[in-house]
Structure formats: structure tokens, C-alpha cells
């Protein structure tokens, strides 16, 4: 733990991964790319924290991994959101928006 780079708010990586998987199953690099793309290149996921996070989420039962074949015919492990993962994503999004709203209030009062 503690290996996340400061460019990601601590504890948000899990939520971002879940979000990245919301519609399609993806492999590790695909998830990193997707997060980078969705954040308009602002967020950059370190591989060093990506995999531990993936295993953590898998152990929680929020995502499920399966071996599959990529577009360019490579074997890769694809992660898919489970029903529990979907609920978790919703909960975290809700939580996150409340927190950021709160932080916004605090900052805008200054």
C-alpha cells in the first residue's frame, strides 16, 4: 500500500477501475488506458498500483477475471464488473460526489 502516486487521490483508484469497467470487460493495460482517456490525460495510472488494486477488488468479489484473447490476438486476463461491483461503484460514486461537494463548499467559502 501507499504506493499510489500523488496524482491520484488516495483511495480513488478502486473507484476509477470499477468505473472503467462499467460497460466492457478490459485487461490491465486496457483499464489504465481507459482511465487515462476518460480523464482526458490528466490521470495516469501507475502499473505498480494497478495490479495490487485489481487483485484486491477481485478478492472483494467486485470484479471477476477471465482469460481471453485481445483484438490483436494476444492472451490476456480480462476483468469484468460483478453485480456486487456495480453496487459498490454506485455507492462510491454517491459517496464521492458528496465529499467533493463538501470540499467545494469549504473551498468556495474562502
Amino acid at each position: 500500500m501507499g504506493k499510489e502516486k500523488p496524482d491520484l487521490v488516495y483511495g480513488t483508484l478502486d473507484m476509477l477501475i470499477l468505473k472503467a469497467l462499467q460497460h466492457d470487460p478490459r485487461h490491465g493495460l486496457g483499464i489504465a488506458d481507459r482511465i487515462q482517456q476518460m480523464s482526458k490525460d490528466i490521470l495516469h495510472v501507475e502499473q505498480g498500483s494497478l495490479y495490487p488494486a485489481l487483485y484486491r477488488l477481485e478478492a472483494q468479489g467486485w470484479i471477476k477475471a477471465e482469460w481471453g484473447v485481445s483484438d490483436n490476438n494476444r492472451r490476456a486476463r480480462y476483468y469484468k464488473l460483478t453485480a456486487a461491483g456495480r453496487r459498490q461503484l454506485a455507492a462510491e460514486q454517491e459517496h464521492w460526489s458528496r465529499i467533493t461537494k463538501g470540499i467545494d463548499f469549504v473551498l468556495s467559502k474562502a
Partner: protein
Amino acid sequence: MPRLRAWFYRFAGLFRKSRTDAEMAAEMQAHIDFLTERNVASGMSPDDARNSALREFGGVEQIKETAREQRVWRWADEFVQDIRFGARMLRRNPSFSILAILCLTLGIGTSAAVMSWIEGILIRPYPLVAHQDRMVALFGTKEGTTEREGLSYPDFLDLQKNSTLFESFIVDRIMGTTLSIGDRAERASGGIVSANYFDALGVQPMLGRGFRPEEGEGRNAHPVTVISYLTWQDRYKGDRDIIGKTQFLNGVQHTIIGVAPEEFHGTFIGYSFNFWVPTSMQETFDTTGYKLENRGARWIEGYAFLKPGVTRQQAQAELDAIGQRLENDYPETNRGHHFEILPLWKTPFNAVANLSPTLGITAAVAFFVLLIACANVSNLLLARSLLRRHEMTMRLALGAGRRRLIKQLFTEGLLLSLIAAAGGILVAYWCRNALVLVSPVRTPGITIDYPGHLDWRVLVLSVGVCIGSTMLFALVPAIQASHVDLSGSLKSEGSGMIGGSGQSRLRSVLVFVQVALSFVLIAGTGLVLRSLVQMQNADPGFSTRSVVVSAVDLFSAGYKPDRAKIFYEQLLERIRTLPGVQSATLARLRPFSYGVYSSAPLEIEGYQPPRNEQLAADYNEVGEEYFAAIGIPIVAGREFNRTDDENAPPVAVVNQTMATKYWPGKDPVGQRLKVKDKWMEIVGLAKNANYRTKLEQSTPFFYVPVRQNFFVQNNIIIRTSQSAPAISNALAREVHALDPNLAPLDAITLQEQVDVMSYTQRLAVALLAIFGGMALFLASIGLYAVMSYSVSQSTRELGMRMALGARAGDVLRLVISRGLRLTAAGIVIGAIAALLLTRLMGNLLYQVSPRDPVSFGSALVVLIAVALIACFLPARRAARVDPARALRT
């Protein structure tokens, strides 16, 4: 729900570790490949592309490690690691592991086996019976004596009728018969039981049915029988259509109505029954006549089931009241007779009575062995912990957590005791029925049955004791390890002093305890052994060497008295003409048999009994020249001869105890006594002898001529210079010549007969010798281990001494004297403990004082000898220490 699943994943992760490790690697490899491809596509050379990808990705191993750490419960992961490591440590030091496991296996195995005997014989002897906890043994007592007697059938019926606190009563009388099926004839043991027997016990025959209530009543009215599973298998070849077939039992055709389930052997501990008949058939199986309507004939043993919630005291009070009422109603037969109930483990009438003191002592002894074994293992663990102190210190220095070290040692102890527990259970399982092996001579066809019962209670107890003790001592090194002084102990190894530190004090205490316990065991074994020898040498009052006994089962063969008389007459004539035979005669009972002597109320001319004393004595019906044949001297008067027959006036011979009790200071010869309404004249005074066991008190006893008191069943007593097998063969020929359908029982000498009855002592000797030997063995290993360890720890000191001029002999003496000091202290405490404990062996001892100096002396000698051997080997090693090398290290 998701939480639960998460836990499951983690748990599964424990076991999938190697697979997921490989998967992780593959997955990351795939990731790197993707990056490399992308780099190539953006125009890098393949090598640069790969290097750049690797750089971007970071340390594969670190990622894996981070992932792994959070993936599983860390402690569980470590636990598996500890077990692996522990197993490796046990394998690395096989002599230690084998020794420790052996000690524990012996300890656990023996104590579990003994507990299974106690459970199977004393506590829960009848596994199929529904409510053993409410089952009690029922018997009669006679006022003024400690004697236990049976019940009479009418009394049994009255108990059934009048009690309110009992669920049921059953009665049961063991008897034997000769069972012939086809051309095979063998002795078989059976039970005459009340009709409610199977119902009350809750035992459902596996084929057919039990007895119906009406089948208990009516003289010889219901020739039906339930046979045992063993008989069914063995003699009827497991015939499924057996029900309704008939079998001759004692000359009467019986219908087989049921087969008892396999695990049910009857309710007489020691014998496995072959068949059961209802009480109505008593006369057919009892050689001494019809008794169902005779309130004075106390011939059956019983059991009772208390109603739930009734205490034994309440039940006993009710029995007392019923007994009192019967005394008032039937004074002639019931005056002074009472009923008593006891828990099953105190059952006075089967093998339990003989075995329970022996088993009690055996249990104590087995417990001692377990203690010694535990002390040994602790010793070994302690010794090893010192040897491993270096390893522990090193691991601490390299950053292992102290908790982790303790857990590691704990796991090793657990592993050790679990392996040993498994071994112990196996040993116990093999030994559960081993008691039979040391039990007395067997008769073909009769199954001796001492059921061991290994149930979870026994197992839990023994495994618990074992694990508890191992863990306790596994932890000592752990605690020591947790305050190891890092810098100090890495430097100083092998520099102890002979008999120095606190740990060696603990180890000394352990050895000392072992020696003390062994002393108690060896002294106890010595006492029982001496008792057995004394008993063997004690004179029973008759000749044992040159007298052979046998019998022909005329009763089962259906002989009536007249025919039997002629048969015996002719047979004795033939035997007397055999070479080497001096005399031959009859006796209804042979001495030292399981049979019950006749007993009758007496009236003695000129003797006024105290008010509540009912005069009674046991007697035996014997043939002419019985006393000469068996070797009991006649002190005054004459013995029986041929003319004492049914036409002559009734006569009797009394023993000395009877004479001094009833005719003090007078010559009993010529006096008269009345037995069963018949006045007899006393014609002789016989020397006292033992009648049942050598342990018995001398009691009044008398003899009457068999010709005047005839029973079909008799023993043949032969005084001869021939061996028993030779007589057996000759006898078989003669019997066959008279009646081709008959065969005699194997002839044995009276000595063998006497030996059978001392089997309690033999059993005790065998068991104590086995356990005592084990204890001695374990204790000597313990002593050896301690001595050789302290020698190896004090190499430097010994080297120093030798460098300063001590000779090899001095060193030898130093080490041995240290070992002997330890032993001596143990012996002193052991002797004190033995003095206190051997008094509890009271009834196993025969003419040997519980403080017998010979037994104590030999225990002393044995222990000192063992201690010398155990100390000598390490001492010799010490004496060979090379001073130069010892000092350099």
C-alpha cells in the same frame, strides 16, 4: 453477502497460492508485451521497446508481493508456512522426532487403551442397551455377612409387582451346556433370563423376536431360544431361514425364535453368551433342580432400570421396604435377607468384581506412564530448544518477530503431539480388546469377552491430555526464546557448567519426577509379582500336582439320575483299572471352580443360634474316598466309603472351622446336624482347605456323600501319577466305550484349576509388568538425554578441568555422580510415594506387606542399575573430551 464471498475468495486463495502466482506472472508478462508492441508501433527498435516497457511497468516481484500480502490472511499464510517449516524441522532431526513421537504414542496409546477397557467393562459395558446410565446391578445380601447372593424367582416377581421407582427388573443366570450340531459338540454358555429381558434392555433381535411375557412362566413350558449372532454365524452358517428351526439343548428340543444383534453378547461381563432361554426352562438347564417356586433358592442375578430422575438412594430405600415386607411375610426363607443395588461398575457377580480393582490400578499406572512420557518429551523439547537457541537468536537478529517465533514453536509442538495422538489412537485401537489375551485358560466354544470401548470420550480425553502437556512444554523454549539476549547468546555456545543454569534445574526436576514415578511402578510390580509367587506356593489344603479332574456332561445329554448312577459306577470302575491311577471318585463341584456350592439352612443339635442369625453353610457332595483322592487329611473320625449310600443313615464330614464354631471344645464326631429336613451324623473332621480361592477367609464348610445326595452332574477326581493329557485320552476312550455319544471335558490338574482362579493376580502382574517396563524404559531415556545434554553443554568446563590436571577417571566420576545424585533424589521421593500408594493395592496383595522390603529393594537396585547405564555413555564421552579442542571453541 459480498463480505462472505470475499472471505471465501481469500480462503480459497490460501490453497491456490501457487496457481495464482503463476497467473499473476503470466498476466504481467502479457501487460509488458502489450506495452512493447505499442512502443514498436510508435517506432522504437524491439530492444528499446522492451526496455522501455519494463521500465514503465516497474518491479514485477514487488507488485506480486504487494498483491500477495493483501490477498490472504497473513497469519493463515504464515501458519501453513509454520507447519511446513515444523515438518521440515522434525524431518531434519529424525532421531529427536521419532523418540518424542514414540514416547508420546506409547503414553497416549496405553492410557487410551486402559481407558477403553474401563469404559467397555466398567462404565458402559452394554453398548446396545438404551439407558445404561439408569441401569444398576441387583443382588441379595445376608445380614451379618458381607456375602453377596442371588435372588429367588418369587422374590424377583414380588419386586416387579411392588416397586414404583423402577422402570423394570431383569434376571439373568449364566449356565453352560453342550451344544451339538451335526457331529460337532462343544461347550456353550447361555443365559436363563426373564421373559422381559430383551424388551427391558431395548435390544431388538436382528432376526425373529425376543421372548413373550408368557414364555417366562410354567415349568418347562416354553422351549424357545434366542441365539447369539456369533453362534448363528459359526454354527448355523448364517442361515437366513433359521427362525422356527429347532435345536436340542440339554435333551429338549428348542425352537429358535430369534438371533441377537452382532454387538450384543449378553449381560455377563467376561463371557459372551451363545444363547438365551426364558426362566420357564430353568429346570432343564440347572443341574440342581426346579427352583421357580422356591423362595429360598437364590440363584439368579439381576439388573434393574431406574425411572428417569430417581436416585439410587431413593431406589434403595424402596427395595429395603419391599425386602422388609417380604421378611415379615416369609420369615423362614427371607429372614435376614435384603436386596441391594449398585452401579454397573461395582457389579458383584460377573468379571467386573474381579477386574475393577485391577483396572483401577492399571489406570493409575497408565496415567503414570503418560506422565513419564510427557516429562520425557518436555525434556527433549527443552534440550532441543537449547540447541536451537542459536537458530532462534539468529532469526531474531535477522528481524523475525518474537510473536512469530513463539507461534513457530507452538506449531512444532502441535504437529508433534498431533502425530503422536494419531499414533496413540492407533495403538489404543489395536489394544482395545487385548485384555482377553492375558486372561485365563479358555474352553473351546466358550468366548471370553472383555470388550474395550473406544468412544469419543476416551479419545478426546487422551488427545487432550497429550496436546495439553506437549504445548505446555513446547512453550517453555518459546518463552525463553522471547527474551533471548541477542548479543550475549550469539557469542557463548557450549560453555555451560555441569549442573548450572535454571533450565538444567527444570530438566533435573523432570528426570527426578520420572525416576520417582518409575520407582512406584517397579515397586508395585514387585509387590504383585511376589503376591503371585506367594499365592502359587501357598498350600490350598489339597494336593494340586497329582490330582486330575474332568467331567462328562450327562445333564446336557439328558441322563436321568438312575442311569447316571450306573454310568458313573461303571466309569469309575474302568478308570481305577487304568495304569498309574491310584484312585478315582466323584464330586459335584471341583474346588476353585465358578460353580456354586450347595448351601442350606442348618439346624445343629445342642447349638442355640443368636436371635437374628440364620445358620447356613456351604457344602459339597462327594464320593467315597474323596479325601484320600484329593489329599485333604481327615483329622478325626473317618471319611466316606461305599457303604454310605441311600440305604445307610445320612452322614457328613465337617471342616475344622465349622467344628470350632458350633462344637467348641467338643469332639464333633458323633454329633448331629439337620440339612434340608434330614438329620445327619457327623462321622469325620476334615482339615480346612480353600474351596473357591486362596484369598478366601476360612468359613464353615461340610461334605455329604454323593450317593445320599445325588445329582446328575458330577466331576471326576482322579489321583494319578500320569499326566493330564494322558488321562484325558484314556478317559475319552473309556467314556466312549460306555456311551459313544459322550465325550469328557479336557482333564486338567488341580494346579491348573487353581491357576485359573488366580487370574486376577496374573492379569495385574502382566499389566503392571508391561507398564512398569515401559515406564522404566522411558525414564532411562529421559535420564540418558539429560546427562548427555549436560555433558555436551559443559564441554568447555570439562576441558578446563582436564587441562588443569583432572584425569579421565575423575571426569567419569564427576558426571556419573551427578547423574546418581539426581536418581537418588528421585528414588527417595518415589519410595515415599510408593509407601503411601501401595496400601491401596490391598486386595491384590496376598501374604505380602504393602511395604515389602524385597519389592522396594529390587526397585532400588533396578533403578540404580538403569541410572548407571544411562549415565555411563555420556560420562565416557565426557572423559574423552580433548582439552585443547574443548577450550578453543
